[in-house]
């Protein structure tokens, strides 16, 4: 079973929820797919990590074979390869690694060069696995790194997914194959607005979901009205306290030190996993 934890808005508590839910499990896997700004490892503190490089190709043109026909540039949809009369310019960062330029080249002048665009860090402890991805700075998309995280965890029984914020391609990739989603939202006008976009995405993808309202007590009641109107299940309400914020700020698992919070985590797991939750 794959359970995605996502939010739309950043900073609502996706990572807090992911790592604390994970800490309540006896067995399972957590993948942190926020490859642009991964934070789960700050709380999990993994040791003995195995690092896997994630690669991307970009074309290299052999000048001796190139006839400067211009076909590669004509077909490339990303302006990543621009032929002139005397040379062919390649813009690595624009290249999506689709392979079309090589296919259309009549002189077999195009080959590919590989570069590392990110890394996956894997660690195991007893019956649990934790993997997180990190995109190299300057790279445009973490989708390939997320794809790897999905691939290495796909045989695992229970997988929690700490998703990236937003509703673009990274989030779609992180959600792939999810059986259920926990939307972590905060009760502010921004939180509600961004959540509506996530709800639209989850409905489009046909993924069942419930909502955890984090940092309740700040903001207003608009979120509860929205949930009722839209007939969305409220899984749990987690009040904002200064103590919880302090524990988070120094990289602590709140569930370890706050029994009420811990109970809430267990409650969420019971609701989502039902009989599959082994306490």
């Amino acid at each position: 079973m794959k359970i995605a934890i996502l939010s739309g808005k950043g900073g609502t508590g996706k990572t807090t929820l992911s790592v604390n839910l994970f800490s309540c499990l006896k067995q399972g896997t957590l993948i942190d797919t926020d490859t642009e700004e991964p934070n789960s490892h700050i709380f999990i503190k993994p040791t003995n990590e195995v690092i896997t490089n994630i690669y991307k190709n970009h074309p290299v043109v052999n000048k001796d074979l190139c006839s400067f026909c211009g076909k590669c540039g004509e077909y490339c949809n990303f302006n990543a390869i621009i032929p002139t009369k005397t040379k062919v310019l390649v813009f690595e960062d624009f290249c999506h690694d689709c392979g079309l330029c090589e296919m259309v080249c009549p002189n077999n002048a195009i080959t590919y060069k590989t570069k590392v665009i990110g890394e996956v860090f894997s660690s195991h402890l007893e019956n649990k696995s934790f993997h997180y991805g990190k995109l190299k700075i300057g790279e445009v998309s973490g989708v390939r790194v997320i794809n790897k995280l999905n691939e290495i965890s796909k045989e695992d029984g229970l997988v929690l997914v700490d998703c990236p914020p937003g509703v673009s391609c990274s989030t779609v990739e992180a959600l792939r194959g999810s059986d259920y989603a926990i939307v972590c939202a905060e009760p502010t006008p921004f939180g509600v607005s961004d959540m509506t976009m996530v709800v639209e995405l989850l409905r489009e993808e046909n993924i069942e979901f419930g909502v955890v309202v984090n940092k309740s007590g700040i903001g207003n009641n608009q979120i509860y009205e929205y949930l009722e109107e839209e007939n969305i299940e409220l899984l749990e309400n987690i009040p904002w306290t200064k103590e919880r914020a302090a524990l988070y700020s120094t990289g602590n698992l709140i569930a370890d030190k706050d029994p009420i919070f811990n109970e809430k985590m267990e409650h969420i797991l019971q609701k989502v996993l039902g009989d599959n939750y082994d306490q």
Partner: protein
Amino acid sequence: MINEIAVISGKGGTGKTTLALSIIPYFEDIVIADCDVDAPDMKILLSERVLREDTFIGFKRPEIDYTLCTHCGLCYEKCNFNAISENIEIKKGSCEGCGVCSYVCPAGAITNKDYPIGKIYKKQTAFGPMIDARLTPGEESSGKLVSEVRKRSKEVALEENAKTIIIDGSPGVACNVISTISGVSKALIVTEPTLSGIHDLKRVLELSRMFSVDAKVVINKYDLNLAMVKEIETYCDMTNTDIVLKMPFDKKIVESISNLIIPSTSNISFFTSKEWLSFIEYLQKEK
């Protein structure tokens, strides 16, 4: 030259939109650009009238004519994005519009058609025109939509002789953020005194340097953990990065947003402080 100020953060929820909104009332002749296209929130507080709405074509997406398709599977085999399923259907959110499938199809069953990924708007606010956009949830190419918001906001600024563009960015460090900061005069990086905040600040600072953007740091909610503030200060010192503002955590700021009032225009003492006013003065200086 137009003074373009981008507010970014790396980590989400540090207070980008709150800060961006709060500086707006201090500028005359401005254009507002909301580049957080998959979570656009500035519109919520800026009373608005839509002046123009356009559908944004992100890329060309393949369409399969099943009366011609022989299910040979070549498109599925050659697609590098795993965007075509085994039963020859295009998967939403995976296709990047490269055109390989239509090129390899021996039956000529695939054509590439303009594909809308969201909407882009020009709006009137009490402070000046605003360009914002809404990505259709789940779509590709959001970076292009961000670039279009930037482009249009510059066009409007030139038309209306505006001196400043205030840009609200998205979290992260990939395409959306790169499109948000490339070529701006100043980037304000909003961080918070948490381990996650520092971790993400370092990454987004590295990105700003890579793109030669003049980046300054704002520590929001600084009073929640003073020891962490020290750590941020040490790191900024080491890397020659200026910290231009420290904002306290104040429930009144959240309340103000909940009441749909720009925090700096409501009665909150921090916004009359010397520190805040000299920060505004710094922003107003043209580069």
